[in-house]
């Protein structure tokens, strides 16, 4: 059923008793044209675009837990396309464009909120780097504005301008950046994919990848074997574990990133703000909570929880940047497992195993990529060739030295 104001009012009059599931809780069938492993944002978006754009409808998304339980459900919801390198900008800009039309496309309000993303700088060197970035964006047709301190004061008067260890010297603003209601992305794509016939199979963990003569035949799961013409991996933090089932080693380490939400408050923080001299970034959710985060904990982990020093570090950054949040209370902190790649950029590519495709390496920036990642992965799965905006994301770029290293940190995943 289509969602609309009328449908909501109509159902309300009927006591909301006639709503039906947003997506079917499908049981796995013996064989699909494509099986996507991972019911996160990327897997679900891939399935949707496979069905919608490429007409491939015998598709299953298999998810070990509940959909949206991975990073799509635990990220800080920031979307932007303020990237630096030519391998990245067109891809993330395409993603932003897809966000801009998402709700009408999938008939689901994911609350795409283009409230702006402001990156602050605190030194001349940082300014130079932001100017470089802003210009790269503008050359690619992406919006970017360099703000001086006076303009930042108007936008965010509550920042610590006068008493700071690292005074604010300016910032780079992307007005079209913003936030999206994370869970709704998973649910909206799931519902839209389901309406096109995709099977969404929850509580179904992939435990093996079966190959015949070097070609993928399907996946072993906790709910039995599922045959597949092609298998696409979109397992984010678990990419290495699943790829290892096919004998692959990846240029990836799994690290935990924590996120934080405060108690709900009346609106105060107008846009997304990132601190350039410490590890802190923040936005305010529509519900009123300050949603914030910082650096990764820094060691390999699959435990989906972080440790106290990082909590302190992030809050130190928050207090250094905006000391008016001091008496606001932290409500909850949690962790997500991220697929940190060796250059900080993703991989959307074939693998050495025929019929097995990989979508991984999103680090802490893959939420904003969800629509384009799905779009490009679907393209790859359907046509067996990379999508034009994702040509940099090849698996062989590491050995070849064609890295897409935005931060210049080198092959140290925990520093990206």
């Amino acid at each position, binding site marked *: 059923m289509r969602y609309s104001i009328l449908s909501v009012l109509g159902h309300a009059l009927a006591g909301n008793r006639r709503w039906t599931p947003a997506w079917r809780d499908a049981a796995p069938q013996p064989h699909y044209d494509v099986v996507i492993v991972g019911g996160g944002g990327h897997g679900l978006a891939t399935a949707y675009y496979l069905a919608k754009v490429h007409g491939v409808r015998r598709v299953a998304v298999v998810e070990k837990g509940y959909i949206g339980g991975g990073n799509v459900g635990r990220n800080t919801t920031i979307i932007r396309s303020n990237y630096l390198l030519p391998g990245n900008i067109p891809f993330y800009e395409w993603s932003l464009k897809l966000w801009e039309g998402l709700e009408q496309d999938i008939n689901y309000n994911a609350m795409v909120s283009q409230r702006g993303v402001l990156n602050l700088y605190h030194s001349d060197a940082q300014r130079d780097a932001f100017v470089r970035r802003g210009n790269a964006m503008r050359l690619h047709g992406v919006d970017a504005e360099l703000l001086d301190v006076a303009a930042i004061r108007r936008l965010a008067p509550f920042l610590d301008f006068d008493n700071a260890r690292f005074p604010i010297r300016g910032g780079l603003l992307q007005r079209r950046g913003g936030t999206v209601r994370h869970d709704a992305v998973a649910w909206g794509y799931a519902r839209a994919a389901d309406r096109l016939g995709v099977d969404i199979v929850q509580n179904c963990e992939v435990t093996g990848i079966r190959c015949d003569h070097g070609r993928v035949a399907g996946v072993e799961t906790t709910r039995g074997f599922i045959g597949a013409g092609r298998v696409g991996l979109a397992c984010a933090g678990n990419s290495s574990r699943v790829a290892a089932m096919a004998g692959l080693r990846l240029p990836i380490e799994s690290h935990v990133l924590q996120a934080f939400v405060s108690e709900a408050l009346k609106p105060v923080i107008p846009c997304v703000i990132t601190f350039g001299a410490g590890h802190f970034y923040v936005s305010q959710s529509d519900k009123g909570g300050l949603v914030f985060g910082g650096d990764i904990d820094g060691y*390999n982990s*699959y435990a989906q929880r972080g440790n106290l020093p990082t909590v302190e570090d992030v809050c130190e950054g928050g207090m250094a940047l905006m000391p008016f949040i001091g008496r606001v209370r932290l409500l909850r902190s949690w962790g997500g497992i991220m697929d940190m790649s060796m250059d900080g950029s993703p991989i959307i590519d074939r693998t050495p195993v025929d019929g097995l495709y990989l979508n991984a390496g999103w680090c802490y920036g893959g939420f904003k990529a969800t629509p384009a990642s799905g779009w490009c992965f679907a393209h790859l799965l359907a046509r067996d060739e990379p999508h034009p905006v994702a040509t940099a994301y090849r698996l062989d770029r590491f050995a070849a030295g064609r890295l897409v290293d935005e931060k210049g940190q080198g092959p140290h995943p925990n520093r990206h």
Partner: protein
Amino acid sequence: MRIPCPHCGSRGHEEFAYYGDASLVRPDPATADAEQAFAEFVYLRDNPAGPHRELWYHAQGCQSWLVVERDTLTHEIRGAADVRSRAST
């Protein structure tokens, strides 16, 4: 987390810097397949969910590189030794 530094005793992990998989060995640059060996050494990881031998550097303490055996699922630490102890014999 508390890392049991064999020299300094148990310390908070924030005193340490992390460097990942300790089983990787810098390849011999003189061999014919050195470029491939280095590419694997530099970029590829096992990244297991479970026991993991990994390098930690006691940056705020004795400045030793340690091999710590830690479970990446539970964070349980089985032990830690100075990396030099594996070479000294």
